[in-house]
């Protein structure tokens, strides 16, 4: 198992290098570069400098591969992701402040969707083709069909019109007041998790139905076990392996959803940072955020693969 983990971590290196290359190059191909933006904003210091001087000052005058080389050596040797082109603050610092917020939002969304999705999926499978099953399945289609940004907007707008209440927009950090922070993130997390809980529910239901048809479930019945014990002890474990895979695959979607919901609920996480950076073509910040997202997704999937070991004894022995 230890050898397996080491091999898996080593295999991440080329993936991350490749990901960083794509990120680095792709954002520089975006139309409208940062120099144009700075000059057009009529910034005093920018106006006085010639275009070349500005490029030189921002380090954008060298060929792109040299820029990349500088960027990656700074990352490897100094742990630095460069400085923002606009504010001149270190990108790493900004990300380290915002990452926990997005992480918290994503985890809350994930946990909420699993807490909702798995039990409902199991229930729908055990009560297959009953009224309850139909209602839950229809509901899951609805949850899948409704986009998060739309629900988010509704939640912002309608309570304000009806009851004069809207979700708090002044962000409270967890270090300041844990409970208000939790409450504040809960609503966007629930909205973010809605679609994922629907997918989880449907997958869990399908897998449970499949597992409940297996011979070993019949063996368990022949032992006189109750349905609850059969589901909890014999079936769920085997049904959950693909659900865990889904968590890994959905990590990207969760992050993407977080970017939008942070915007709606004014949560100063990675998403809001990214959006501002993209609008101002702040290359180091965009690269930094994407790179950290890439690392996060890669590691989530590594964790997913490792967690198979806990569920599937065959994987453990390898």
């Amino acid at each position: 198992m230890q050898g397996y983990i080491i091999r898996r971590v080593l295999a991440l290196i080329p993936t991350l290098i490749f990901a960083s290359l794509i990120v680095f190059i792709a954002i520089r191909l975006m139309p409208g570069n940062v120099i144009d933006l700075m000059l057009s904003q009529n910034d005093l210091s920018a106006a006085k400098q010639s275009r070349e001087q500005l490029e030189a000052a921002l380090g954008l005058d060298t060929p792109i591969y040299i820029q990349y080389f500088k960027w990656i050596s700074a990352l490897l040797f100094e742990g630095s992701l460069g400085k923002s082109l606009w504010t001149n603050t270190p990108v790493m610092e900004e990300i380290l402040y915002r990452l926990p917020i997005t992480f918290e939002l994503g985890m809350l969304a994930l946990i909420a969707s699993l807490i909702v999705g798995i039990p409902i999926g199991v229930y729908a499978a055990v009560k297959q083709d009953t009224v309850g099953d139909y209602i839950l399945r229809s509901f899951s289609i609805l949850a899948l069909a409704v986009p998060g940004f739309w629900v988010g907007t509704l939640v912002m707008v309608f309570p304000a019109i009806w009851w004069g209440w809207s979700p708090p927009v002044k962000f409270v950090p967890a270090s300041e007041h844990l409970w208000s922070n939790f409450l504040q993130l809960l609503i966007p997390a629930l909205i973010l998790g809605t679609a994922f809980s629907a997918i989880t529910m449907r997958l869990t239901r399908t897998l449970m139905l499949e597992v409940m048809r297996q011979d070993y479930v019949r063996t368990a019945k022949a032992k006189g076990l109750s349905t609850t014990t059969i589901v909890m002890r014999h079936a769920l474990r085997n049904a959950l392996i693909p659900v865990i895979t889904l968590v890994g695959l959905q990590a990207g979607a969760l992050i993407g959803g977080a970017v939008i919901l942070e915007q709606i609920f004014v949560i100063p996480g990675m998403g809001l940072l990214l959006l501002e950076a993209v609008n101002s073509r702040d290359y180091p910040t965009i690269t930094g955020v994407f790179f950290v997202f890439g690392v996060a997704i890669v590691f989530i999937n590594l964790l997913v693969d490792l967690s198979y070991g806990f569920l599937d004894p065959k994987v453990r022995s390898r």
Partner: protein
Amino acid sequence: MSKPLLQVRNLTTRFGDGLGAITAVNNISFNVDVGETLAIVGESGSGKSVTALSIMQLLPDPPGRIMAGEIVFDGTDLAKLKEEEMRTIRGNQISMIFQEPMTSLNPSLTIGLQIAEPINLHKKLPWQKAYDKAEELLNRVRMPDARSRLSAHPYQFSGGMRQRIMIAMALACQPRLIIADEPTTALDVTVQAQVLELLKELTRETGTALILITHDLGVVARYADRVCVMYGGKIIETASALDLYARPMHPYTRGLMASIPRLDEPAGRRLVPIKGQPPNLSQLPVGCSFNPRCSEVVDRCRHDTPELMKFDDKHLHACWVAPHV
């Protein structure tokens, strides 16, 4: 003679309803005495397994349903029990061994847990004691190194070993009846003999009755006390194993006998297969279900359905042609 342990009376089990309904088991009756081994023999689709699942009340419902009849086990009609009551009997008084050892064990649980589970459930023993018992059972099914094997998972065992684990599991609560549904069909021939020998020995030691479901007449001869031959959802002949071999009455039984090779007969004898196909249960022929394949068919067989008739007190068959009282 004492009362039989299990009395199946006029059991009829049907799958589906309406026009597509299939009567998998059609009005069958048989007894199993305490400590006896009864073999139920027949080809695929003859209703053997459905009979077993009906006794266990484990039919997939829907589509399978017991339409009529009683299954009296130790004075209780299992067909009338509520699901919760039936659960106290399954794995406890009656346990079952299934055909597929490769898929009948849960791949993600240790075999120790799987054997200890019914003990913990029915005998209300704490897990630690149930595991001790499981170790004892593994020793009894001659699993080498039982203690350490408790924490192993099914994929670490061969088919024969897994079937031993299934036997240990079936014996866990000292049931009064074990139903073994083709327990060795999926195994190599050499392993088959070992597993059956073990099963026979352990049931004899503990006085457990055994219903051995098989399509293999060779198995029947060696391990069964009595035999029921099933065809098209009906029992068409029943006798003691010795008697059945000595005097098979029903043309189907005789056909089965003629189609198996034997070592004690002159070389060069050709095996005689039974002509035709097993019957389609949704369109059974009128009269005796076997009549389209029967070499001795008479006119009566084509419109009159034979029920079991006595040849003597212990030997019954459902054939108009064979001698009967």
